[in-house]
């Protein structure tokens, strides 16, 4: 658990960080909260000759709520997300999900940007961001662009982000209606055996709009358009939930690990998705 030696960079602005990235290319990585990258370096599974610590880049921190638009700086910690009453009022699903990430010590360091940018299928925020239809802002030498969370993830640890870009902000519209982030894990600090984010808007007795996305049930987060479609227009009764669960299960592809074999994960995923939908509906 001793990493190879590396150069440590600590820029104070995004331009400074981009300059180091441009200079060293593949040999440089940005460091956010460090809960994924540092262990990989200690295990010598990641070789990072130039480590760019972003913690002094003030422009990457903070939560901005303007009307129904929410923008969160990439270096905002999970703890800061949980502690923000304004964010909780605007998007309560964030606190509900963030409280299910690891433990307080990890959440004091772990950031939303690191969580979404690393591309680890076990991370909770990517699925949640897909559920919220969030957009990620990426800055590089050629300027700034935004990418939808729903099209950002390509494969495990592979994303649309270019090696020389930095994910700087995350923005999404404040969700309306009911919400739930349901997660089964073996213990505190574990990744999900299965997790599901659900948002449901109600119109009278019917579902007006829905969004369902899942965590750690494929090599990327999974947004299930078909699951949402099965709910919209229904009374969110048992038959509709069953149809939505069936549709969502069609979209996932879990793999066997120490949490259990595929058969178990598919079954638990169905239970977790159904609970998320029912809880979101109960709050809609």
């Amino acid at each position, binding site marked *: 658990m001793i990493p190879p030696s590396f150069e440590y960079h600590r820029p104070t602005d995004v331009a400074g960080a981009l300059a180091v990235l441009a200079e060293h290319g593949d040999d440089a990585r940005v460091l956010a909260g460090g809960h994924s990258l540092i262990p990989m370096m200690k295990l010598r599974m990641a070789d990072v000759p130039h480590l760019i610590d972003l913690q002094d880049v003030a422009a990457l921190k903070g939560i901005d709520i303007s009307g129904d638009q929410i923008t969160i700086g990439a270096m905002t910690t999970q703890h800061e997300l949980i502690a923000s009453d304004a964010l909780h009022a605007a998007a309560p699903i964030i606190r509900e999900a963030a409280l299910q990430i690891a433990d307080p010590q990890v959440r004091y360091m772990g950031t939303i940007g690191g969580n979404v940018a690393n591309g680890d299928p076990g991370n909770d925020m990517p699925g949640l961001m897909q559920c919220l239809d969030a957009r990620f802002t990426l800055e590089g030498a050629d300027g700034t662009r935004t990418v939808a969370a729903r099209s950002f993830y390509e494969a495990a640890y592979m994303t649309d982000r270019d090696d020389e870009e930095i994910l700087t902000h995350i923005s999404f519209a404040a969700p309306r209606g009911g919400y739930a982030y349901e997660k089964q894990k073996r213990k505190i600090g574990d990744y999900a055996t299965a997790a599901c984010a659900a948002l449901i808007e109600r119109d009278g007795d019917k579902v007006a709009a829905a969004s369902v996305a899942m965590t750690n049930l494929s090599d990327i987060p999974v947004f299930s358009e078909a699951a949402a479609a099965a709910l919209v227009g229904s009374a969110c009764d048992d038959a509709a939930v069953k149809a939505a669960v069936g549709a969502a299960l069609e979209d996932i592809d879990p793999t066997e690990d120490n949490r259990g074999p595929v058969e178990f994960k598919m079954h*638990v995923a169905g239970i977790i998705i159904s609970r998320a939908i029912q809880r979101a509906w109960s709050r809609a």
Partner: protein
Amino acid sequence: MNDLTPDRDERVANLKGLGCSRKRVEDARFTQGKGNYIDDISLPGMLHGDFVRSPYAHARVKSINTDAAMALDGVIAVLTAKDLEPLSLHWMPTLAGDKQMVLADGKVLFQGQEVAFVVARDRYIAADAVDLVEVEYEELPVLVDPFEALKSEVVLREDLDGQTEGAHGPRKHHNHIFTWEVGDEAGTNAVIDDADVVAEETMYYHRTHPCPLEPCGCLASMDKVNGKLTLYGTFQAPHVVRTVASLLSGIEEHNIRVVSPDIGGGFGNKVGVYPGYVCSIVASIVTGVPVKWVEDRMENLMTTAFARDYWMKGRISATREGKITGLHCHVTADHGAFDACADPTKFPAGFMNICTGSYDIPIAYLGVDGVYTNKAPGGVSYRCSFRVTEAVYFIERMIEVLAIELNMDAAELRRINFIRKEQFPYQSALGWEYDSGDYHTAWDKALAAVDYEGLRKEQAERVEAFKRGETRTLMGIGLSFFTEIVGAGPVKNCDILGMGMFDSCEIRIHPTGSAIARLGTISQGQGHATTFAQILASEIGIPADSITIEEGDTDTAPYGLGTYGSRSTPVAGAATAMAGRKIRAKAQMIAAYLLEVHDDDVEFDVDRFVVKGAPERFKTMGEIAYAAYNQAIPGVEPGLEAVSYYDPPNMTYPFGAYVCVMDIDVDTGVTDIRRFYALDDCGTRINPMVIEGQIHGGLTEALAVAMGQEIAYDDMGNVKTGTLMDFFLPTAWEVPNYETDHTVTPSPHHPIGAKGVGESPHVGGVPCFSNAVQDAFRPFGLRHTNMPHDHWRIWKTANGLGLHDT
């Protein structure tokens, strides 16, 4: 005396002696980060060691090229088996009479095995150099299943090939280590074959690991000028380490000083001798400067001593009324690549022959076959006396299975079969003499405390509701009644490598009436500095706050066998009381002289000696201590010191009654422990608060083992659970609220009646948690399912019983 003289109760309270919930004196430094652990120790010029380890579970080592590593600036040496061979240190003896490679000698036998030892100027360079050592391997067939190993033509231990005799008798196969048999097999089989009712079950007690917070490490410092070797390390038995180091190195024992500093938990993991210790010593001897080696978490989990890994096959017979008539147990014990179990020499399966449990079973048999596989060596007693967790799990599961066979309530079945109070001292069918117990009283108290009848009624209602489709949650009631066997042990039958398992205490009273006591044991968090001072306070009348307890430095402490198997209080605690009584005997003579009466005319009273019948005439222990050093007393040597080496006449047998109430989500396998009640009887209670802490800790480790903690291997011998992501270490979040309770049945042979308690909650807790899971599914036809009861295995049980069919 006058009105200001404290009354007797106040004087007793001032001592903070036996029965006082005195706060732990160690905690001031531990809670402030001021502990002194092995990695806190730094010596001038110190070098750092790190291991090249095998990625393969079984492979021939074709070549090792250290050139690139040696070329790295700051690398001092790279040791391989070839370098150790001239010193005959490429192999070392194990505590179980086997031998173990220190560094790979031609082949590797488990993943993570030590192949080469790099010594460098700092820890970072050492790690870089490890990557530069080139090792060429040729993979060999891997055996991770002991039953396969006993059939396979693959020879794991080529060094033993052709040897038909091992340390514990004949070997049946080249991968077989020993057969150990206790009891009357023919007689037991005859009883079982003729019995009204017989229950059979095979159960696997999975491999796990003690996983102390602090991993293992040491710092060796060879002073070539004075010829003295100092060895600091995470040793649960520092004196034994000194003797073994002397025997291995040829350095005379008086020239070796072993120091165990603060130790961050042991749980059996720090009893053994590891290659890192040997390599550090050799490296320090070679380089002439101190060499430190501290392993990381993955190395600790993957390579240091594991626990359990027992395949247990049982048959138990009873009358139709439920009276047990016989018990047969056979164990296939997976010992990994080397037999490095830490057991008393004559007990290759530890005290597994306590497997008749708390029950009056007239005839029994135990057979154990030890087997080599391509897994890490070890087989230590993880928070239990030697293999007692396995024994208690076995009998507490067999009782449950028998209850199913008899269609009887498992609590009632236990009650019918408990050894009765009047039967103690009780001779068990497998050779132990239980010193004392009152099981029925404890059991009745426990069942009443949890309203057992009410729980069973609620459970029956839940089952009906489940069948009606109104709930998807089942309720399990876990029962366990355990008898521990601790305090190893009587020298007549307990030794480790020939060293008798006595223990010791040496006391010096200072002239001003305070004291220091040194013991042969070593605390790893048990709170010895707190509790041994309390024993002494009550014995010699000096306040516990005025007594320093010191352990772990072999230059100053008396020889002892160390701390494991809940032996410190039964053995060293007894030595402390006995040494205290020697102090008191001398103090009595001094007091009599000072009071100008005959020795027999004074008596001890809390903190003083008083003239019989005239309590206003007295001398306090402080006055006596001062006189001992500063007054010429005819016929009495100056000073006030004593030493006692205590060879216990018997083990002690703590016991307890536990109940767990658990709700289980049938669809996800998620469990919720609603209630856990633990009644412990450890005899005389020295410090109730420390006992409660011990019970909380032991139950939490029991929760871990029962509900998810395991060292799992794939077919290639790769460790699948080598990090704390996958190896379950419970946090406050997963731990339920524990209700503790007690009865007190003092040990009749221990000087203060104490029995040892640190491991009881682990021994009793594992079957209790497991039985709760199994009990939840009993109404649906489950007989037995193996631990650990993690979500997917519970789900699989429910699935197998058809509970997911809609």
